[in-house]
């Protein structure tokens, strides 16, 4: 790609959600507007690199998309009605000053959608990715992804969602923001977890999540948004070290920390520090604080486990879940020994408990029994965890870990 084409692509991805947001705000009809904007973007991608970027690129896109929408309306049954609405609308030589990206994002992450649908729609409408690219990242046929996106748009319209933001700081606004952050976090996690193995294309998903979260943070530089951005940066900083040459997972304690990205750690830490003092920290700020504590340790043995254990304790109060308790048990074991961690786990693994028979519970028990020198029990749990996980990289890690312990048991 020439650098002119690359610059145009960056500009278009920045402008795409703004233009779509303005169009939907003006005309409604999410589905039709999106098609029109896609056509305008395509026209720009074809013409701008050779002919130069127009003076007012956003106005150009709005004008072109508006024309396409009018063309579409002409060819449809309801044309008279729509033409009137479009005709009443003045052409848009000047782009409106308001950036509608945030409104569009709130719409795409509407709580009426399942997270999977919201992610697909967000990537397409806000991220400006092509349906084929999203389909490739999620390993489904393009027609399936196109249908998922289309159903999501219909669902939003059926839910009667309007293209405006609820009043700032109202309860509904908080709920909707939480939904946006949740979708962005899931998107990041999918990309991060899949950055091992042959599915490298999926690692782009975490880059995309970071790019979108940066946009939200620019517009809403508030506590939990900053917390989420910091969490992503502080986690992503470890990506170069978390897999080996064959794509195998490397646990935190064994990673080559010289390969961590210092710039991302510095940036994430700075953003996290800025959020401190703006109210009681929520789950993203607490998770970011834990990531920062790990990133700060020059060697695994320098990790401030008492502090990490304490932050997990806060997290248990703010956003209690069995997974949080599982993680606290690991931290507790590092502070007070494996026995203390195993005792805490006993509460989770009771028959009927949420995590009874869950592979992650077996994996943590295996580690703690290994720490305690109980090789046989550790092996049993490693085997159970390996059998029950549905993640191929995790299974490989657990199998290799068990094989290592079986071949070289520690001297008693």
């Amino acid at each position: 790609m020439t650098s002119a084409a690359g610059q145009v692509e960056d500009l278009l991805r920045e402008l795409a959600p703004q233009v779509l947001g303005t169009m939907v705000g003006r005309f409604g009809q999410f589905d039709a507007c999106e098609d029109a904007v896609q056509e305008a973007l395509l026209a720009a991608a074809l013409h701008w690199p050779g002919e130069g970027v127009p003076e007012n690129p956003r106005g150009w896109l709005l004008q072109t998309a508006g024309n396409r929408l009018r063309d579409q309306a002409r060819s449809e049954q309801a044309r008279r009605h729509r033409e009137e609405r479009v005709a009443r609308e003045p052409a848009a030589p000047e782009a409106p000053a308001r950036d509608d990206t945030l409104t569009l994002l709130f719409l795409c992450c509407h709580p009426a959608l399942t997270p999977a649908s919201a992610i697909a729609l967000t990537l397409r409408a806000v991220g400006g990715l092509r349906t084929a690219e999203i389909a490739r990242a999620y390993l489904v046929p393009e027609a399936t992804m196109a249908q998922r996106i289309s159903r999501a748009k219909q669902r939003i319209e059926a839910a009667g969602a309007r293209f405006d933001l609820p009043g700032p700081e109202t309860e509904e606004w908080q709920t909707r923001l939480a939904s946006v952050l949740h979708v962005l976090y899931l998107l990041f996690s999918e990309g991060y977890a899949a950055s091992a193995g042959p599915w490298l294309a999926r690692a782009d998903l975490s880059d995309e999540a970071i790019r979108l979260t940066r946009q939200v943070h620019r517009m809403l530089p508030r506590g939990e948004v900053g917390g989420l951005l910091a969490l992503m940066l502080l986690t992503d900083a470890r990506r170069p070290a978390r897999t080996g040459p064959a794509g195998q997972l490397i646990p935190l304690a064994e990673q080559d920390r010289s390969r961590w990205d210092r710039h991302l750690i510095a940036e994430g830490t700075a953003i996290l520090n800025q959020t401190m003092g703006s109210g009681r920290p929520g789950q993203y700020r607490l998770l970011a604080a834990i990531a920062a504590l790990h990133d700060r340790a020059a060697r695994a043995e320098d990790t401030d486990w008492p502090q990490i254990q304490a932050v997990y304790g806060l997290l248990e109060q703010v956003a209690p879940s069995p997974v949080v308790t599982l993680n606290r048990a690991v931290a507790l074991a590092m502070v007070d020994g494996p026995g203390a961690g195993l005792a805490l786990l006993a509460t989770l693994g009771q028959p009927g408990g949420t995590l009874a028979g869950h592979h992650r519970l077996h994996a943590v028990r295996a580690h703690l029994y290994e720490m305690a020198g109980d090789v046989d029990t550790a092996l049993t749990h490693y085997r159970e965890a390996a059998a029950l996980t549905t993640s191929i990289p995790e299974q490989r890690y657990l199998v290799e870990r068990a094989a290592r312990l079986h071949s070289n048991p520690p001297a008693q």
Partner: protein
Amino acid sequence: MPRYLLMVNHDNGVVDTGFSEWTPEEVAAHMSYYDALGRDLAESGEIVQFMGLADPRLARIVRSDGVSAPVVSDGPFPESKEVLAGFQVVDVESEARAVEIAARVSAVPGPGGVPIQQPIEVREVMQESGGDV
């Protein structure tokens, strides 16, 4: 081109030990053999799907008469060798080529680098298109 489904069951061939009793090097050799096979078939443009299935203990059997609530039970029996463990779908020139790929799957190395000789079932897939009748 014809398509074939290559199926492998929970049948460990000539090997009677589980992964965790192999050495880490033997496990790694086993895994990288599959990786190389997957890469080769991706490069030759013959692979359609390559999937391992999760443990049979996570499986459910569903029966429904279309009216009342479906009956969901656990199963199949996890110790059985007759349970599907994974499959590939390949799109190849001929049955001979499908058999050649199945042979590579079967010869995956186990302890001591010895091929484990898992039985691979090769099934041709029905086509959507039809000729003149």
